[in-house]
Every structure is written in C-alpha cells, then in structure tokens.
C-alpha cells in the first residue's frame, strides 16, 4: 500500500481493511504520536465539508504533522480558473500526501494519476468516500468484536447514498447478511443486487420499517433527502416512514448498535440519543483514529 493512493474502498484488500481496523484501535489507545513530524499534508477541499476536514486535520495534528491547503474553492486558485491537474501538480511538489474533497465524480482517481504523492479521497462527488467506510468498519468491529457473520440492516436512501454502497462492498468480505429497508424509489441499485448475488451473499429487501430489526446486529440509518424525489407527493408519503424512535428498540438485540454517517435531520428521533445502542456520535469520533491509521499506512510509517 505504501505510496499508493486511496481513491475507492475497492482499492483495499480484505487484509488491508483488517490492518487499518487494527491500527485504528492502536491509535485510539495511544493517539498522540509524532509519526508525522516534519511532514506536510495538503488538505484540498474544493467544496466545503467541515466535518470531514476537521476529522482529517485533527488526525494530522495529533500525529505532529502540518497542514497546508484550503477549505473551499472560493479561496483557492480554482476560482481563478486553474484546472484540477495544475493545482494537484503544484501542491504535490510541496507536500508528502494530499487529502482531497472535490464535487466532481472521478476527480480523485484523476488527481491520483497527476500527483507525485499519494492522494486520499475525502469524497469525490457522489462516487466514493473510502475513509467514511473505514470508520464505519472500525465502529462495527469495535462494537461487535468482529466483522464476520453479522446481520446488517440499512435504512433510508439506499439508491444515492454512497456510504451505503461502499459499506456493502467492504462488508462483503466478511460473510454478512444484509437487510435493506427503503421506499421503492430509493431501493438499492440493481448493480449492487447483481453483485451480491454473484458473491453468494444473502440479502433481503423490505419496504416497511417494522420489528424485523429485532434480528439486527447493526442498524445503519441514512437520510431520505427531499431533492432525490421527482414527485413531491412521493416524498411526503415516505418521509416519515423511516424514522427510528426509541420505542422501536425495545425488542432488539443487546449487541445492536445504531450507526449514521451524520448529519442527521429527523430520521433518528432525539429520544434514541440516550439509548446505549445509539452509537453515531462515537462513530464520528472513530473517524479520527481511522484516518490516522490510513495516513500512516499509506506513508509507510506503521
């Protein structure tokens, strides 16, 4: 993996995923290390994403590294019409590694081709966001003790949610059973259904969010976004169907944990927050450790 970019979760083998998860646990146990001393990391956010940027920059700071870059494209040379290629060529001459967020699909793969240093994709449009997937995996491992043989329920927008697609792909290394709960308009795309079938992985699809969750080990909630619907009446019909309320958790397994990539709107009722099964805030914190692991792994420092 050394000096190889991380663009898509599919760039990682099962062994590499397991290594990142192990390293994340080590960094959580011992977060302040000087592994990035005298290293300069480019943090290029061509579109704003405060949550992801702060998570990366915290990870870098805890490791003693320095950050250069910008937090949205209006403060970069892009606003003067510079191409992505030129920006990457320039920044890769100054830095040891680049973390990049960009609104265009495929921009990260292209940047990786143009760069002299490795690129970590922090989200390329609707395509990939692999460090989110790695922190999801770390959260699952931490709460379940294993990644193997779990029953994973995914709820909400399974059509457009890139975190859902990447997590489905990554978890498929570990013999899961998937239950997909979504309205017809937002069901998991055919390419993923065919792909799961070809791998012999069991999955079930449901339209209703009911007590079937009593069998879940992981409940992965996502936001149903109004702008995804062509017909506003369809949105009105489904918007309140996929809301998790505390009362729905009474018959669920003790080891169940609820994940959400955040930010949430109303799909998880606030009365769930106090339930010990709610894990979404710790999940976000795990992102710092997962990103420390990825950065050090890619730079060959661990």
């Amino acid at each position, binding site marked *: 993996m050394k000096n190889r970019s991380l663009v*898509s979760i599919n760039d990682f083998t099962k062994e590499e995923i397991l290594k990142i998860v192990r390293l994340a646990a080590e960094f959580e146990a011992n977060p302040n290390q000087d592994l990035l001393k005298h290293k300069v990391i480019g943090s290029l956010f061509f579109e704003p994403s405060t949550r992801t940027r702060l998570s990366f920059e915290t990870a870098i700071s805890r490791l003693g590294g320095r950050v250069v870059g910008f937090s949205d494209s209006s403060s970069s040379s892009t606003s003067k019409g510079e191409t*992505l*290629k030129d920006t990457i060529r320039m920044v890769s001459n100054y830095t040891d590694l680049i973390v990049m967020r960009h609104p265009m*699909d*495929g921009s990260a*793969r*292209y940047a990786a081709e143009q760069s002299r240093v490795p690129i970590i994709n922090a989200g*390329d*449009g609707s395509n990939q966001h692999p460090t989110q997937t790695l922190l999801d995996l770390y959260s699952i491992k931490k709460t379940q003790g294993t990644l193997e043989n779990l029953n994973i329920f995914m709820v909400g927008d399974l059509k457009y949610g890139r975190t859902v697609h990447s997590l489905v792909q990554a978890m498929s290394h570990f013999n899961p059973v998937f239950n997909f709960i979504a309205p017809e308009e937002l069901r998991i795309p055919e*390419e993923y259904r065919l792909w799961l079938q070809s791998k012999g992985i069991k999955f079930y699809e449901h339209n209703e969010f009911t007590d079937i969750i009593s069998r879940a080990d992981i409940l992965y909630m996502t936001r149903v976004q109004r702008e995804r619907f062509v017909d506003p009446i369809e949105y009105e019909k489904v918007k309140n169907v996929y809301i998790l309320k505390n009362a729905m958790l009474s018959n669920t397994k003790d080891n169940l944990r609820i994940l959400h990539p955040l930010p949430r709107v109303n799909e998880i009722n606030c009365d769930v927050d106090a339930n010990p099964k709610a894990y979404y805030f710790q999940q976000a914190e795990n992102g710092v450790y997962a990103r420390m692991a990825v950065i050090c792994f890619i730079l060959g420092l661990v």
Partner: protein
Amino acid sequence: MNKKKELSVNAIKEGTVIDHIPAHNLFKVISILGLDHCDNLITFGTNLGSERYGKKAIIKVADKFFENEDINRIALVAPDARLNIIRDYEVVEKQLVTVPDEIIGIAKCFNPKCITNNEVITTKFLVVQTKPLALKCYYCEKITIEEHLKIH
C-alpha cells in the same frame, strides 16, 4: 461478398473495404478512423439494404491497411463490421472486429458530473458487457450503456 453491391460503389485495386457498418454510425466510423483527415481515395455508400441489420453502410479506402488496434476502435459503433483486404481487385483476407477489454479515448462518459466531462482528460472505460454494450468509467465508476453512448 455480393458482386452487385460491391460494384454499387467503385471497386478498388488495393486497400480495405469495411462492410456491415450500421448506416447511422457511418460518420462516427469515419471520424474514429481519422478518414476525415486522410488523403487516400475514399468512397462510401450508405443506406444500402442489409438482410441482417436494416440499413448498412460501406467504406472503401484505397491503398490503406489498418492495424488491428486501430480497427478495434470502431467496435463500439460497428461491432459487426467486416474488413475485406483487397489486393489487385481480389479479397485476399477477411477480418472481424473484436471489442477490446478497455476503451481509451473515443467514448464519452454519460455522467455530466464526471471529471472527464469537466476537464480535458482522455476517457478510459472497462468493457463490462458487449451485447448490449456497457462501459464502466475508470474515473467516476458509473456505467454508460449503449443507448447513452456518445463518441468524441
């Protein structure tokens, strides 16, 4: 080759005849092979009747012999094309087109948010299915199907 159809466009002494091109893709084939910037004698016929494909087109290029690599580039728009290599007015060899595993350049990604549609980048696709054609963009990872395929 049917002699009558062959004669409906001028016969050539040496060169290549490309047959069984879907009529609506004739100009795409011309452009992919760069025949629009070629000084050789070229004749073409289009909207010829074909029992198998409806309307077809045919191109004859005098004194030109294509490399396999070049000719496979037209597989996207003329997968059933056949090449007849002509020497001294006789067909000495026939070639079929094969769809390559990877398509570099030529095709456009259908995804308007793809970086290849927003910056000057040579496109790259994996051929995930040939009939009907499905191309996976190396950059945005989205699949372009035949219906949405555009040629540069």
